[in-house]
């Protein structure tokens, strides 16, 4: 009796699991769903704009409410201090910038709150003509004083700390013009001002908040197409269309960003039809989501490039050991690292500049994978099996590639001691103190330019644990090329300087650049106008349902 009962119960449990987990009876994938991901995957070196054109446009549903799921909660609404992409996404809706990126072509900038701009002869000052009749969300009109005030405040924010070093002055010229001066002519400076961290808001609002002690992280008065409505911590954040928007009222009237920190639940929520857009899809759920009817999965190239850092500072293994660094380079099979570390979802990009940024060279060739050469080089250094410490943070983003790379280096003969550490502990020990012979991390260029990608990691002025160049990378020749790229305003010249930097790094073996990961975005096939953006600077005003 008991045996029979147990069997029946077991059968019920298995049946329930199968019903719940069973594959869909619907067709595997719609054409619209398949096209963007495949197109994107094949186009590592191309811009993100290519994909949406492939997606079959669906008829408008007439819906005006949009729900977005994000696995990360924003920290603040105030421009200048937010470092999370979830926050930048919201800031893009609430605030406008003087100039704006073109969806799909980041380096093409179009007028925002400035209708036109003019460079001074020395290229150090840009005079912006401000758009007339722009209103803040409280109904007051934007003035040149507001623009000057908010840009100055933005520059004080922690996220803009590097950009602030460029700024010499921000001045009001007259009621319709402002002038922004930099310490030297910096070619990508307009790109800096297009970041949501340089959003414009009302001076009066800011001063009133300061006087009353209002939490500016949770209120706003910008000029964006949407205004802030409500924020329930850990639950959702709501925005409403701003009908007096200078660019015309957006088609989507209400936007809700739901916070779901569990990626699996977020994916299921998207599948259940509770949302229209989802940021933060895990690569493990990629195939399931792609096979779900009416879902479009976008491979959005990450803004950063994975790299391996070989520490050449005092007391570390690679100090004065160029051949050992070269041996590491020869031991790395980037295709395998991508396959084992990122489930094959990344794009192998050995060039130090992100494929989406200015300065990327798709034809550049890295040191080839050659295990015999690696072994030969290592043997030539007199290496006798000393332990090489490799510390990695425990997120799958870093830990999985680290495990593959450690194994590859072991095959070349290195005695690698791979230590997987909790993220906070890793940041304390490695990111803040450089306490490891090897680690892997990611470049994180704030704006799409080679200077943002490379300078902090390779220039000798950035050496030391308080900076990003913690491995003593760089030399005079490399500095000259980096400075050349930074101070030149000629695109071709700049491109060549960064190519030189890539060659010098490869020759010296300080860093091995590996691949660019993908931040997947999912939309339903009802969402129109979605163009993948590596930094999540989306403008919902350009979308419709």
């Amino acid at each position, binding site marked *: 009796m008991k045996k029979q009962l147990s069997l029946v119960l077991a059968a019920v449990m298995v049946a329930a699991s199968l019903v719940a987990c069973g594959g869909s009876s619907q067709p595997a994938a719609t054409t619209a769903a398949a096209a963007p991901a495949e197109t994107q995957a094949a186009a590592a070196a191309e811009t993100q704009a290519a994909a949406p054109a492939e997606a079959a446009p669906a008829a408008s549903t007439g819906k005006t409410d949009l729900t977005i799921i994000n696995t990360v*909660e924003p920290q603040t609404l105030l421009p200048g201090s937010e470092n999370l992409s979830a926050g930048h996404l919201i800031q893009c809706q609430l605030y406008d910038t003087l100039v704006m990126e073109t969806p799909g072509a980041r380096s093409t900038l179009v007028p925002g709150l400035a209708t036109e701009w003019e460079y001074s002869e020395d290229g150090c000052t840009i005079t912006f003509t401000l758009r007339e009749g722009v209103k803040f969300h409280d109904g007051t009109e934007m003035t040149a004083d507001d623009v000057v005030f908010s840009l100055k405040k933005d520059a004080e924010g922690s996220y803009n700390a590097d950009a602030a070093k460029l700024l010499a002055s921000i001045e009001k010229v007259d009621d319709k013009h402002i002038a922004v001066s930099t310490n030297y002519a910096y070619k990508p400076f307009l790109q800096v001002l297009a970041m949501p961290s340089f959003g414009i808001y009302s001076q009066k609002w800011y001063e009133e908040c300061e006087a009353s002690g209002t939490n500016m992280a949770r209120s706003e008065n910008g000029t964006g197409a949407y205004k802030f409505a409500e924020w329930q911590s850990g639950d959702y954040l709501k925005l409403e269309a701003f009908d007096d928007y200078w660019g015309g009222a957006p088609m989507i009237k209400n936007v809700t960003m739901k916070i779901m920190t569990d990626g699996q639940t977020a994916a299921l929520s998207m599948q*259940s039809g509770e949302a229209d857009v989802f940021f933060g899809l895990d690569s493990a759920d990629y195939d399931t989501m792609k096979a779900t009817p009416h879902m479009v999965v976008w491979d959005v190239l990450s803004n950063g490039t994975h790299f391996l850092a070989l520490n050449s500072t005092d007391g570390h293994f690679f100090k004065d050991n160029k051949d050992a660094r070269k041996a590491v380079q020869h031991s790395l099979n980037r295709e395998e690292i991508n396959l084992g570390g990122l489930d094959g979802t990344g794009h192998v990009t050995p060039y130090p500049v992100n494929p989406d940024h200015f300065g990327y060279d798709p034809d550049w060739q890295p040191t080839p994978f050659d295990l015999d050469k690696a072994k030969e080089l290592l043997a030539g250094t007199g290496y006798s099996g000393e332990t090489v410490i490799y510390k990695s943070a425990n997120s799958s983003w870093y830990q999985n590639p680290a495990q593959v790379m450690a194994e590859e280096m072991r095959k070349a003969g290195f005695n690698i001691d791979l230590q997987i550490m909790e993220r*906070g502990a890793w940041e304390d020990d490695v990111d803040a103190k450089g306490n490891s012979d090897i680690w892997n991390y990611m470049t994180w260029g704030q704006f799409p330019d080679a200077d943002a990608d490379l300078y902090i990691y390779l220039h000798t002025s950035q050496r030391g644990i308080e900076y990003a160049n913690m491995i003593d990378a760089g030399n005079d020749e490399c500095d000259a090329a980096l400075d050349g790229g930074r101070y030149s305003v000629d695109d071709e010249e700049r491109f060549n300087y960064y190519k030189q930097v890539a060659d010098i790094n490869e020759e010296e073996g300080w860093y091995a650049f590996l691949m660019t990961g993908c931040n997947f975005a999912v939309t339903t096939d009802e969402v129109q106008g979605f163009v993948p953006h590596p930094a999540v600077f989306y403008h919902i005003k350009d979308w419709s349902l």
Partner: protein
Amino acid sequence: MAKMIGRRLLMLIPVLLGVSIIIYSILSLTPGDAATLILGDSATAESVAKLREELGLNGGFIERYVRWLSGVLRGDFGISYKTRNPVFMEVFQRFPNTVKLAFTAIAISSIFGVLFGILSAVKQYSLIDNVVVAATLLLSSVPDFWLGLMMILLFAVKLKWLPLSGVDHWYNFIMPGITASAHYLANTIRMTRTSMLDVIRADYVRTARAKGCPERTVIFQHALRNALLPVVTLIGVNMGWQLGGTVITEQVFAIPGIGSLMITSIRQKDVPVVLGALVFIALLSSLINLATDVLYAYIDPRIKSQYVKK
């Protein structure tokens, strides 16, 4: 009774102080810096130092703890490092969701637990008893997150009968309530069954039957009242646990409650929020324990008599 309640309330002071010291020490000794975590990789050393100063992270361990404690004594639990909202507001914004989830789970586990426990004991060794015993085994072995995900797949994704997330309607709490109650339901059934089996064999129950009392009266008035004492203890303990935040259930169903608040705050090293939430939970658990003890007195006159002045 009042004296006992007063003494127990006074004991709360060292308990809460101890909890805060332990939590503060753990959070201070574990690696990770709140300012670095908030500002991210793009931050410069100067901006990290500036934020550390703003957050008051530069003082020594004891200095920071004393500053926090003196604030608490004035009713100020501090400001969240992450949201810049008062900690009190952060905790109380989320507390109603945890309460709703906890009460749903406790209601399910108590009502069905006691009901099936009685049924199982009264019909010992019958088919019903076997099914109930097997079901308790199943319920206590299934992990919360698995049960939750399976229910989501079935009822939210496939059948679309229930919403996956949200906290605005009572039906939002059906699936989370069942998930959070599964283990407690199994324990309550087992406890009620065992306790009832002990009681229904007792002499006074046999006497009641011999006097000709109807079976329903025997079970519900004579047996159950005496069998309920350990069950009440269990429900009290369960209530404390549930109000402390069912972290996994809240994560799986995206419920913005105390559990999910603590998880995100621990990850962010948002010390004031973690401390505030934990002290609040400790206070709540202690009060629930006290309420359970008071309830004993009403259920069992023998216990009540211990508190009566002689």
